[in-house]
Each structure stands twice: as C-alpha cells, then as structure tokens.
C-alpha cells in the first residue's frame, strides 16, 4: 500500500461551554489512500460532520480540537497558518455540502461563481476564468448557456451537479462529501452518484463520503467506518461490513432502512433500546477489519427481528 493521502490519528474534538464539555469526536484514527472512497456512516449527531470540518479547519467556537493529528501528504494540517490554510482549502481538499441551495450565492450567476474560483486561486483573467467555467460544466453535462443562470433557475439535481463541479475545479486530490444527495429525489440521487463515480474515474481524486444511508455507502465506498457517539465502532472494507457486520450498532444502522427484498418483517428503529457507553478501542478481527468489542459479546441480544 502506498503512503496514505490523508492520515488522521487519535483526533478528538470537544465543544467547550461554561457549563460542560462535550466530546463530539473521541480518539478517532483512520486514513484515506490516493483515489480511494472512504465512507463515514452514523446517525445525526454522531460526529461525522465534525470530523469533516476538522480536516478543513472549519471548526468555530465552541468547538476545539482537543488532541490528535491530521496529516495530508506531507502537511501537518493542524499547524497551518491562515495564509497556508487558504492555499490548502479547495486546492488540496474541497468540500461538497448537503444543501446545494445554501452553498451557492443566490444573487450571482453560476458562471460568475465558478469564475470566481479561478480568478481567486489561479489569478487568471475573467475571460479565461469564464472559459474554464464552461469546460467545467461540460464535465457534469450541463449546457453552457446555464452559465448565465441564477441558482434558483436550476433544479435541485442540477444545482448539486454545479456544486460538485465547483469542488473539482482546482483538481484537488481529496473531496469531502457531506450527505451530497440527502435532499434529492431517488432517481436524481442515482444520477448524481453515477456522475460522481464517473468524475472520480476521470480525475482520480479520493473521496471522504459521509452519509447515514448505509446501502448507498456500501454501494459507493471502498472502505468504510461506522461511528457512534464520537467513536468508531467498526471499520473494514465496505463489502465486509455489509456481509459480516460484527458490531451490533452496524447491523442496527443497516436495518434502519427497510430492505427491497426478502419478507416484510417489523423493524425496530435505532432509537429503541440500542445504547452503548464507554466504547473501547478497536481490535482487529480479520484482514483490515476492526471492531470495538461489546460487553458480553456472546450474549448480545439479537438487535433486529
């Protein structure tokens, strides 16, 4: 295996207030290889977006990085100063947020917004920038005349395509996608996912993919991790997690979506009686498969059905 692109070790993030301190991310370690798709799954509030924001150093008060390290190639991300950070973001690591409407400026045309990236980061002329903006739209199959459109004139799927195109504008080696299709329709979601796969094949970037939809994640990712209350509870190749989930929470999360095949059985949601405390460190249970041991593993109650 070559040297990883992104390497996170023992990362902890705390939300500090006068009243109390909450540990949102607790001693998390993982790495993403060049061109690899790494998935981060978990319910809302488990800390997955906090990790994404920590990588880009987007955390604001009261969140503080309480420990650990983030390395990107040869860069120590946590020691970058403001100028270095500006160069690091977007060119090295770009992010696609959940809501495409909120990440586009409603009073600027699509063309101006994309051109902005090039004039700011590459110091090219406006004319050149607009030409490159048109090339970028080609990449995601949106006609050039849309350069003059405002965000509200595009459908939700098209807006998300624009946002994805913008993230790849400076050819960053790593893209962080935080629930990129959650707000979209199923058919559009499938189209966008196919598009992301195509772009990835073409441009070769790695993806840190964040979602709560386990089926989508297993379909798209090479390796993945399941997170609960700021801790990793299981990490392995996506196929292994799907076929042999070892942690009860992993199975529960997988069963939180009704299946499309098999008999109809009553499912129990995640809220009903699945709680873990003091999750221990991961132990290896197989080739690249790590699980947090659960108390009395043999006597764990059957979670589903």
């Amino acid at each position, binding site marked *: 295996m070559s040297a990883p692109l992104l390497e996170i070790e023992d990362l902890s993030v705390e939300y500090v207030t006068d009243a109390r301190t909450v540990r949102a991310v607790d001693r998390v370690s993982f790495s993403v290889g060049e061109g690899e798709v790494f998935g981060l799954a978990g319910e809302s509030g488990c800390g997955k977006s906090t990790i994404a924001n920590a990588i880009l150093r987007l955390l604001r008060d009261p969140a503080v990085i309480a420990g650990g390290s983030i390395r990107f190639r040869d860069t120590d991300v946590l020691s970058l100063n403001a100028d270095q950070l500006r160069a690091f973001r977007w060119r090295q690591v770009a992010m696609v947020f959940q809501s495409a409407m909120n990440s586009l400026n409603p009073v600027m045309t699509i063309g101006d917004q994309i051109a902005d990236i090039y004039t700011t980061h590459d110091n090219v002329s406006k004319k050149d920038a607009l030409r490159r903006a048109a090339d970028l739209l080609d990449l995601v199959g949106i006609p050039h005349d849309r350069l003059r459109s405002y965000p509200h004139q595009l459908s939700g799927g098209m807006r998300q395509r624009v946002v994805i195109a913008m993230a790849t504008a400076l050819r960053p080696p790593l893209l962080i996608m935080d629930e990129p299709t959650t707000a979209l329709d199923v058919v559009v979601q499938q189209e966008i996912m*196919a598009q992301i796969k195509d772009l990835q094949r073409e441009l070769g970037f790695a993806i840190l993919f964040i979602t709560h939809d386990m089926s989508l994640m297993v379909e798209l990712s090479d390796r993945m991790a399941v997170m609960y209350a700021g801790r990793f509870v299981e990490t392995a190749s996506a196929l292994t997690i799907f076929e042999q989930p070892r942690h009860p929470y992993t199975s529960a999360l997988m069963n939180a979506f*009704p299946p499309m095949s098999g008999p109809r059985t009553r499912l*129990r949601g995640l809220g009903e009686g699945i709680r873990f405390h003091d999750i221990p460190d991961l132990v290896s249970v197989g080739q690249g498969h790590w699980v947090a041991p659960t108390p009395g593993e043999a006597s764990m109650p059957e979670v589903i059905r």
Partner: protein
Amino acid sequence: MSTQTPVLSVRGLEKTFAVGGMFSRGRVRALGGVDLDIAPGEIVALVGESGSGKSTLARCLARLEQPSGGTFLFEGKDILKTEPRRASRAYRSAVQMIFQDPFGSLNPVHRVGHFLERPLQLHDAVSGRGELERAKRRLMEKVDLPAELLGRYPHELSGGQRQRIAIARALAVNPRLILADEPTSMLDVSVRIGVLNLMRSLCEQQGISMLYITHDLASARYLADRIVVMFAGEFVEGGEAMALLADPQHPYTRLLISAVPDPRRRGGFDPVERARLRHEVLHPTSCPFQGRSDTRCSADEPVFHRVSDAPEHWVRCGLYAPPSDAPGTALELPNTSEESPAA
C-alpha cells in the same frame, strides 16, 4: 380489490395550473385524471419523483387546491358537489394532513400543548378543562411521547418528536383518512422506522386509512398494503405492494426500483440499462400485453392492463406515454443524452 365500501373513491381527478404571466396561455397538467379507491384501514403508498403530481393529488383531496375536473366521494358523499366552495368542518376533521417538514408545520411561539388543544376545541371534541387535559395526555400516549413534553416549545424537540406531535395533532379530531406527504424524508435514520411503525399501528388499531406519499420505494414496501406509481400526473402502475415490487411491469416503475441503493449491486446501476428504461418511459414502443384479448387501448382512451387480479396488479398500457406537458421530472433534464460520459 376490497369488498368493503371505500372510504375514499377518486374518479378522473384533474388539476391544471396556469403558468407564465397573467396573459400567458401556458398550462401545466399536474394531475391528468386519476382514479383511486382507499378501503377503511388501508394504507396506500403513492410513489413517484418530485414533480410527478403526488402532492397535488394530496392537496386536492385535502381541499387546499380546487381540482379542475373529476370527482371524489368521501364515505359515499360527492364532496365537490355538496361542498363546492370550501370544505365543511366535518370534512376537515375527517381528512387530516401530515406534512414533510416538522420544523415548518409547528408554530415556534406556541407550546406543544397548544397544538393539541386547538383542534380539540375547534372541533368540539371535548368539554371542560379536565377532559381537555385528559384528551391531550391520551394523544401523547398514542404517539409514544411523555406527557411532560406538552409544556415544551417546538425548538426543544427533535425532528422525530416534532413529527410525532404533528401526528398527534392529526389524531386529535378522530380522522378517518390521513394524507401523509413524505412524513419521514426529513427525519434522521435513527427515528424513521419508529415513525413508520407508529403510523402502521395507528392505522391497524383505529381503522384509519392512509395515503402515504413518498419517493422512497423501500419505505412504501415496508408500510403500505397497496402501491400506486405516478409519473407526469398519471398513474402508470399499481397493485398489492409485494406483488407489484416482485414483478414490476412499467419501465418507470423499474427505473424507480433501480434507483434504490442496493449494496448487492456493486458499482452502481448499469447506466446503459438506465438509459434504456428512461427512453422506454418517454418514447414507448411496445407493450407486453399487445395482441391479447383484453388489450383494446388507444391514445385517446388508454386502458390499464390487468397483470393479475389476486393479488391485484395493473399497469398502464406501454404503448402510450403520459403527456409530455407535465412539469419537470428528472427524466426531462436537458442533459438526458449524456448517459455515460466515461463510456
């Protein structure tokens, strides 16, 4: 087919919206004459993409929109005839709606108790302070929430709790039909199944009928007795939920099914197959039922073919595409030609 008298019986319901400016003659047919029966206690899922007309149907049934044509009977009464201008109070209490966004449907300045009190008082469901309190507590119990939450404000509740309050509010007036418009699509995974289970048990225990609107076929399969698939304002396929999903006939149904993420299918759904299905939907060329004795369809009067009677399963004739003046569905994005740029 149910032998019971349906709670709701829709016949040829249409809705056309004017588009463009005041002097424009643009028209969009959001609902192209649909028929639907819902039996007492039955859950019917209405499935389709955004823009397919699902919500328009629900809004017409809730009398939030005035249909442009067609009729519907509720408990045997022709509602558009007997209450042509606006719905009676009796109708509005019998037919309740649950919306997608539990953050937008509860007024932030009121406590939870208020949302349950108002319908109880307006529809004269209770008399006296003590009975009102008891009724509120009973409602909270029905949706599995602790009574302490009655004194809280909406912002203090989670998304799932809010949606449960919205359900309790709908239950306050003893509805016979609930129109649920994507009630779980904005909820986190951790609470989705819980809300689906709650809706199921309410329908079972109290004999409430439900029209469950969603784009998520998996949840429709989990919850519904019957599924109706909608495309461009028309029904294209319907029937008993498991039978329909086991043997989907219409290309649009198959396209929807293929869009559900499936971990068994590594690397995503085959783009060539997807393009073929899309093309079939928009430019139909053949119908598997052609030449059979029961196939007398024409473009003016497209009929539905019976796939099977028990379990019930029918499909719109594949030879005629729904009209193309329907509002934008994902199939009509201008870039439909770029199917697989990597190929």
